[in-house]
């Protein structure tokens, strides 16, 4: 590995020596470069002072990076500040684009920063450049055991590969700790604290090159999300649901050999120093309903801290992650709608941090005129997703970017138009759905779905239903008659207790009337039964019942009259008792028969 790097550098060097034209008359009078190696993301800060020594005004400043770095460049920002010293003016962000001259060496990538105003002769300008690289640290050795700590190689040039001549330049490399395995010692190299300082070097020509290799230990989490998809779903009912799917790997030195939990638990900082134990996710302040899970369920090792400005979610993967180990999980949380959705005239816009290489913004069904504004170049596309009870689907904006670093965590906006009435679609749909189900039920219960309405069996069934109905009514009437009988008997008992003849008579009278009414009601029913052929086999029984019942009625009336009369005349005695008893016998016999008949008819 090492030798290959060296080779790269040599090739570069060769090119650099052969190619030394001065692009323009710009000269960098002072260049200060700081490389921050404290985390897996390498941040290079350049402070340079550009001077135009030529005659033509210059509108662009070129910055060059070797190809192996430029491929891993995640972010390049140039800020120009006017004025000098302490009285620096407002900083302006310069637009940067790739501009490869035809005669450039192959291993250099050129970036051109356009200046806000042309740089005239003799004028100078201060530039601050931030370049962020990923994956430029190489673990070396590539495989370590649990007990070893991770070592990384970083290689660069002590001289900034500038297309311009540089008058004074220096390089500072900041390491995560004070330990360093080895570093290239050039002239004017100083190692102090956790910093290695090269330079200052004076009057270097363009594309001068002096390879530097730093080999240093670092046990900082080296977590790389191979895949990270963030789904932002807006519900106008008051919630923005964010779901982040992570697929991460420990990108440091591969772990090899045994993993001993014992060693890891007993001496965590010695055995397992390179392991990733936990990660911190910074969520917006009012995030709620936070979950952390993976394909096989909830992961119980997480903690939430929060204050008014942010919510910190400390998540611990299911297992400590050693080099090369992978895992995947999902984090989800809800945000109050008013925190990130705003209205501007007729349009609404979502304002949320970028924070993920792939953002799917799911807008509510019925959104129109969608546009996205992101502060840096991204790939955009639009798809349709279907969720709860959607018909047309929800327009979804997909915003993609490769190589995202924390510096990209800026706000971006999605503008769209949405009518509040569309909110009611789904509830109305549900209401209508349930309503139609009930209506269908009602129709089904009331409609007759017989296939053949003229078939004999169907007609017979109809008739039989009618007969049954009639018999039911008839039975009802008989039952009421029987009730009245009971009442008459009761009045007699009452009489024997109180001797109130008048009341008893009144009861009889009302009962008599009722019974007459009932027998009137009975007649048409009997007529129906007689006319119906279906009722032929039950008719005799029914008629018998009616006759028996009438008989019973008469007997009871008779008894009642007799007893009341005797009370009235106070002419009790054996004779009456005998007569009453004989009637009573008949009554009970009749009652039994009537009961039997009623029973039979009920059974029909």
């Amino acid at each position, binding site marked *: 590995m090492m030798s290959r790097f060296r080779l790269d550098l040599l090739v570069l060097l060769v090119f650099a020596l052969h190619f030394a034209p001065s692009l323009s008359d710009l000269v960098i009078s002072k260049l200060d470069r700081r490389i921050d190696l404290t985390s897996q993301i390498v941040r290079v800060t350049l402070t340079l002072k550009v001077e135009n020594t030529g005659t033509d005004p210059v509108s662009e400043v070129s910055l060059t990076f070797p190809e192996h770095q430029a491929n891993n460049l995640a972010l390049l920002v140039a800020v120009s500040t006017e004025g000098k010293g302490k009285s620096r003016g407002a900083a302006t962000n310069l637009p940067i684009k790739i501009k490869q001259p035809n005669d450039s060496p192959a291993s250099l990538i050129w970036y051109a920063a356009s200046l806000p105003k042309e740089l005239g002769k003799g004028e100078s300008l201060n530039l601050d450049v931030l370049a962020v690289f990923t994956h430029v640290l190489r673990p070396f050795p590539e495989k370590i*055991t649990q007990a070893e700590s991770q070592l990384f190689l970083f290689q660069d040039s002590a001289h900034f590969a500038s297309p311009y001549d540089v008058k004074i330049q220096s390089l500072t490399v900041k390491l995560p700790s004070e330990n360093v395995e080895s570093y290239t010692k050039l002239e004017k190299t100083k190692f102090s604290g956790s910093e290695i300082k090269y330079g200052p070097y004076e009057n270097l020509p363009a594309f001068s090159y002096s390879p530097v290799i730093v080999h240093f230990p670092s046990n900082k989490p080296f977590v790389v999300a191979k895949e990270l998809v963030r789904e932002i779903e807006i519900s106008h009912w008051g919630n923005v649901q964010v779901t982040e799917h992570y697929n991460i790997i420990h990108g440091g030195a591969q772990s*090899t*050999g*045994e*993993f*001993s*939990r*014992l060693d890891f638990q*007993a001496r965590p900082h010695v055995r397992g120093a390179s392991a990733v134990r936990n990660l911190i996710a910074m969520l917006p302040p009012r995030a709620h309903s936070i979950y952390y899970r*993976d*394909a*096989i*369920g*909830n*992961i*119980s*090792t997480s903690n939430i801290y929060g204050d008014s400005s942010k919510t910190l979610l400390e998540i611990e993967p*299911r*297992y400590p992650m050693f080099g*090369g*180990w*992978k*895992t*995947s999980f999902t984090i989800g949380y809800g945000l109050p709608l008013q925190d990130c959705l705003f209205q501007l005239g007729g349009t609404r816009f979502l304002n949320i941090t970028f924070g993920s290489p792939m953002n799917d913004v799911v807008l509510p069904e019925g959104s129109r005129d969608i546009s996205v504004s992101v502060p840096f170049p991204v790939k955009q596309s639009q798809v349709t997703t*279907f*969720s*709860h*009870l*959607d*018909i047309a689907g929800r327009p979804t904006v997909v915003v993609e970017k490769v190589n995202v670093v924390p510096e990209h965590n800026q706000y971006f906006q999605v503008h769209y138009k949405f009518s509040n009435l569309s909110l009611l679609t789904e509830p109305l749909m549900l209401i209508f759905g349930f309503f139609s189900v009930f209506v269908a039920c009602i129709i089904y219960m009331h409609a007759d779905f017989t296939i053949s309405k003229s078939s004999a069996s169907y007609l017979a069934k109809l008739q039989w*239903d009618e007969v*049954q*109905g009639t018999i*039911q*009514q008839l039975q*009802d009437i008989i*039952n*009421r008659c029987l*009730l*009245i009988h*009971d*009442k008459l008997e*009761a009045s007699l008992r*009452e009489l024997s207790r109180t001797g109130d003849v008048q*009341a008893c008579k*009144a*009861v009889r009278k*009302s*009962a008599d009337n*009722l019974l007459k009414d009932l027998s009137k009601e009975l007649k048409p029913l009997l007529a129906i039964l007689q006319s119906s052929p279906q009722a032929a086999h039950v008719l005799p029984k029914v008629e018998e019942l009616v006759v028996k019942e009438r008989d019973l009625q008469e007997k009871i009336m008779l008894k009642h009259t007799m007893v009341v009369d005797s009370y009235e005349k106070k002419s009790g005695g054996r004779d009456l008792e005998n007569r009453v008893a004989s009637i009573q016998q008949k009554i009970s016999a009749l009652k039994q028969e009537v*009961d*039997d008949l009623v*029973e039979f008819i*009920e*059974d029909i």
Partner: protein
Amino acid sequence: MAVPIDNNLTKPTPPSSTLRFAFGNVLAFFILLLIGVLAFSIRLFSVIKYESVIHEFDPYFNYRVTQFLTKNGIYDFWNWFDDRTWYPLGRVIGGTVYPGLTLTAGTIWKVLQSLNIPLSVETVCVFTAPVFSAFASWAAYLLTKEVKGTGAGLTAAVLLAMVPSYISRSVAGSYDNEAVAIFALIFTFYLYVKTLNTGSLFYATLNSIAYFYMVCSWGGYTFIINLIPMHVLLCIVTGRYSSRLYIAYAPLVVLGTLLAALVPVVGFNAVMTSEHFASFLVFIVIHVVALAYYIKGMLSPKMFKVAATLVVSVGLVVCCAVVAVLVAVVASSPTKGWSGRSLSLLDPLRLALGWSRALDLPVPGQRHSRLAPSVPGYKTQYQAVKKTYASKYIPIIASVSEHQPPTWPSYFMDLNVLAFLVPAGIIACFSPLSDASSFVILYLVMSVYFSGVMVRLMLVLAPAACIMSGIALSEAFDVFTRSIKFYISNLSESLQIDAGDTVPGNNVSPPSDVLKNDKKEDMLKERPSRKNKKKEKENIEKPSVKSKTEKRPLVLPVEASFFALFLTVLLGGFYVVHSVWAAAEAYSAPSIVLTSHSHDGLHVFDDFREAYAWLSHNTEVDDKVASWWDYGYQTTAMANRTVIVDNNTWNNTHIATVGTAMSSPEKAAWEIFNSLDVKYVLVVFGGLVGYPSDDINKFLWMVRIGGGVFPHIKEPDYLRDGQYRIDSQATPTMLNSLMYKLSYFRFVETDGGKGYDRVRRTEIGRKHFKLTHFEEVFTTHHWMVRIYKLKPQKNRIRGKTKKSKSKTSYTTTPRSGTVKKNPWH
């Protein structure tokens, strides 16, 4: 006028009573709805207390199959050959699973998906069981209504909605066959009884379809296909043969058998195995009886007698011949099933074997791990089984805790007060005895017997017990409320009379109302039997009239009935409290996540998933993982790695091979595993945190099962004086076995050289040792799962320099001298 009784619904009635009926129906409908909600929500404790996750072992397999179904479609599902399990044999999943559950959940998922409701397959699977338990309670309502009316139906439905025995198998996440099968079972019974009551061919057809669904769902369908013939036979013997009985039975056998044969896992078993013979036999019998009745109707009694003697004598001869032929055929058939299986009805263990074969999947330590916190001493479950059973029959069946006969406490735990109410229900079913109630009684009796054979079959008993108790409670309420009503009406009558109220029809009606209720109920009970024959009808009508007249004084004193009512409600209250407790505490743990409460709050042991997640992310896709079969399903489902054996246990030899490897010394084990292409070995070890159902406790079963096939593994070698121990008294064979080594590797360093095992409550016997052929690659946070990798074979070294064997990059651990210590002889 009357309590709503549905039989009268079709008749046009006076408007007031129609309103009553309608009101009653709406009330019943809402009660049923609430019962459904209750049944569903009482099973959500597991989701609320833990999380929405699939539980235990078998559900993971079902979940995996459902995932496959939803991803690949039904045709691929039928043809699915699973190469991720039983390596290198594989398993034909499509032809060996009961597809009912998977198809059900898959269909639900499809429907939701088509409605754009984005539920994951996992969510659907988790909530299938609660949904179907709501269905099951509705089915119980229907069945009981057919037997004893609406009131009993509602009571039975409430009881079933929260019977602990059923909850234990249908909490949210318990995605197992039984979850839908119990619904299918009850519903099939309902349709059978309904057909029996109505004689409608429509219901008979539905009954066959319901039976088909049951066959799809669970091996327990044999219970139906034996119980219904039994009932038919009972009806015939007791002279209750009718055309309705014929319609209820004959189509079921014909259609049901045809449909059952469509299910791949059943196939020709539906006509070829002894479990189904009873139904065919009764099918013949019912036809003979039908013929006899037909001829009886045609001939005069005298002629019939002559004909009967003739036929019987000829028939006896023919029967003898047929039986002889049958016996000969069966005896010569390859399965030899008949003679052995018929014995199984009498021998509980044989029966258990038959059942477990029918139910397909013996589940290890399921109950066991579930009951972990509540049942003391259960940890010895794997050893507690009587040795005679284990050595006499297949130990693999005996090793499963839920195949043991239940103890009395488990009846109380799973049925609670139902156990006491059931006898009352039986009595209520006998007064009067109808076809339907005799069926319920038969169901109860059979299921009680079966539950006595195997704990697992308590599940079949639970619905029967609920129906019986529902009937009992409802009857009791009926008597008490009737007494109270009677008392109140008397009271109001006397009051009204005192007040001189003469409004007709008002003051006398309540008692007659009560009376009429009774009559109607009697009618309802009597109906089926009455339709049989006129003669019989007369006979029964007489007692019923008598009973009606007797019922007039059948009112209890009001104080007594109030008191009894209070006690009954109290009893119900106890049941509810117990059920909720059981649902919340005993049965809702998912068993893949363990929790313990300590003084500083809840502690979660999520080691299983930690290990499975590690396997799934950090090993190659085609790596083979060996573990004891308990963890096979979970490994395939959660880690998506190929396993050697799993919970399906269809190949005893394969399991014995793994058992042998685990009980062998390191080198021999390495050779066995290497021959199986195994790359990782997974063991479960509870010694550090005191998790009792770990592999060391199951180890004796590995020895037994291994020894059953490979005789060089001998159980006594692992026992010291018949005792299983791992302390210093343990046998050298034990201490050298792979299982011991993998479990206790470097364990002694955790507590400063003592090596105290918290499960076995002893210091381990062999403390310091090295592994030669395996290396530790992962151990979970609480050491509950340890994963080892097989070291690659060493380079062959010529000559004397035995020690310089490290050309490979793997030899980082110093292991001088371990070769000499290797006890392989």
